[in-house]
């Protein structure tokens, strides 16, 4: 039915080369501009943790809705979840760079600033790390539980394991809803410590789901082009691109809702966030963000014929890989590095993290059959056919 995915030496070498480039870029960065390097580490690590969480949510959603069409591809989001332990370790490294990123973490910040003092019982360094550890522990534990059930299903079969997975998925999405919201407040929103947005958590969650799905689609298509997933047909592509199309609208909606309310109410403590972006040299990137993450996917995936074109879906997904980076760039850089910078540190560190993520995901994919064996909806997925 399928051939086992092998982590080839070529891929392994390529990933290690990318990781080495990343390490060189970070080392170079620490010698030239430390703050910018820490901002890059936060950006890239948050990027790939978001992808993992998006993938976990995608997987949980398939169980909860008992979707048949996607049963074949569930190893891909499972494999993406394996980045979480690495992401946890790298996030803990932030301890050494906190003062470069978070103004509230300075000892004297609370003394001179009433607002930071007000937030201090929640936003202080020890509690920040306690939360971080709890979040990652919950995510890793839940992802491992789902993975174990999925592997047991391969050998044992039966409906009981599927029903158990469904139950755990229901718990998992509640955990993600709460913990990922708080995580995005902690890691990203607290950069601009005086600023807040009630839509921030939703927007970042939707971004994680959106771009996580894009990467799942990209991996599935790349594997298909390598000769795996021979059953991937136009109906699967249509469903994948419907996900992307729907999420592009939701992303655009939340992006615009957050922007419009702040722009319209025109309260200085809120508008400072966009003032920094528009007048700090980020205005072009601000528009590129909207075009790359909403406009192009929306227009390209509007027609059904385009939805079923494997090249279109693949290149939209690749565009979204860059779009996500731009989205995070506009969220993190104005508050830390202030003026926009782009060079070897940005490119190199992204390549390094991408190499790490690819290596972990490919390794996890090679550890289990690419197509699950006894999934109750597997046959429906293999025979998936909708009118076109």
């Amino acid at each position: 039915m399928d051939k086992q995915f092998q982590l080839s030496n070529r891929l392994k070498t390529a990933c290690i080369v990318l990781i080495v480039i990343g390490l060189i870029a970070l080392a170079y960065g620490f010698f030239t501009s430390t703050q910018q390097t820490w901002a890059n580490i936060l950006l890239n690590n948050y990027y790939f943790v978001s992808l993992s969480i998006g993938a976990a949510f995608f997987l949980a959603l398939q169980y909860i809705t008992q979707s048949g069409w996607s049963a074949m591809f569930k190893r891909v989001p499972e494999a993406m979840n394996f980045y979480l332990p690495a992401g946890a370790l790298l996030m803990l490294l932030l301890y050494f760079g906190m003062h470069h990123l978070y103004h509230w973490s300075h000892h004297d910040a609370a003394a001179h600033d009433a607002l930071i003092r007000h937030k201090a019982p929640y936003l202080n360094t020890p509690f920040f790390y306690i939360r971080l550890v709890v979040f990652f522990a919950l995510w890793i534990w839940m992802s491992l539980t789902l993975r174990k059930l999925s592997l047991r299903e391969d050998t044992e079969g039966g409906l009981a394991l599927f029903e158990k997975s469904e139950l755990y998925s229901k718990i998992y999405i509640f955990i993600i809803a709460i913990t990922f919201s708080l995580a995005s407040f902690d890691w990203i929103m607290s950069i601009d410590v005086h600023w807040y947005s009630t839509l921030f958590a939703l927007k970042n969650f939707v971004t994680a789901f959106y771009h996580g799905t894009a990467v799942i689609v990209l991996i599935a298509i790349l594997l298909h082009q390598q000769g795996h997933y021979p059953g991937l047909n136009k109906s699967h592509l249509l469903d994948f691109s419907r996900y992307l199309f729907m999420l592009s609208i939701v992303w655009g909606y939340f992006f615009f809702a957050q922007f419009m309310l702040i722009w319209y109410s025109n309260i200085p403590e809120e508008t400072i966030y966009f003032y920094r972006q528009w007048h700090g040299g980020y205005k072009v990137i601000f528009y590129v963000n909207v075009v790359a993450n909403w406009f192009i996917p929306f227009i390209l995936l509007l027609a059904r014929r385009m939805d079923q074109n494997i090249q279109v879906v693949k290149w939209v997904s690749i565009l979204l890989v860059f779009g996500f980076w731009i989205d995070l760039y506009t969220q993190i850089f104005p508050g830390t590095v202030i003026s926009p910078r782009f060079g070897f540190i940005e490119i190199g560190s992204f390549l390094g993290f991408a190499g790490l993520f690819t290596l972990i995901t490919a390794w996890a994919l090679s550890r289990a059959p690419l197509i699950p064996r006894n999934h109750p909806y597997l046959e429906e997925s293999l025979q998936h056919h909708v009118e076109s």
Partner: protein
Amino acid sequence: MNIIGVFNEETQLVDALHELKEQKVSIDEVYTPYPVHHVFELLERKTSFTWWAFAYGFMAVVLVLSFLYYTSVIDWPLNFGGKPSSAFPSFIVITIILTIFSITILSLFTFSVMAVLYPGKKAVMPDERATDDKFVVVLRGQGQEAETARLGDILRTHGAAEVYEK
């Protein structure tokens, strides 16, 4: 006189439609209790409906935005807290709402025209059991005994519960 075949099962219907298509018989119409994907494909019905919806949406966006621009910038500019008259972000929400509204209403009329539907129209229903649990195929009769018998045989071999002329 049309030939009408009544099926009990969806699979039998789809099999019969495949056979009819292979034999190059033109199928007039199919009535099913619920939408069946294969039927749409086998009948090869093409529709320009989605393009009309897109055209209405595009037209609505252009019209609504130009209307808002005319009223709030050209005809009667007002100063709202020092904001520019051409406050584009605040135009978007009403544009989305009115676009959806225009697409809905105009699509309804377009659909009614395409399907020749109007208030008080009598339902076209060769076999009323299609609204219960039966699948009904309507073939255009050729007026020849032999041809009618052949089509009836095709339907029966694939499990038609009844074949009759009407």
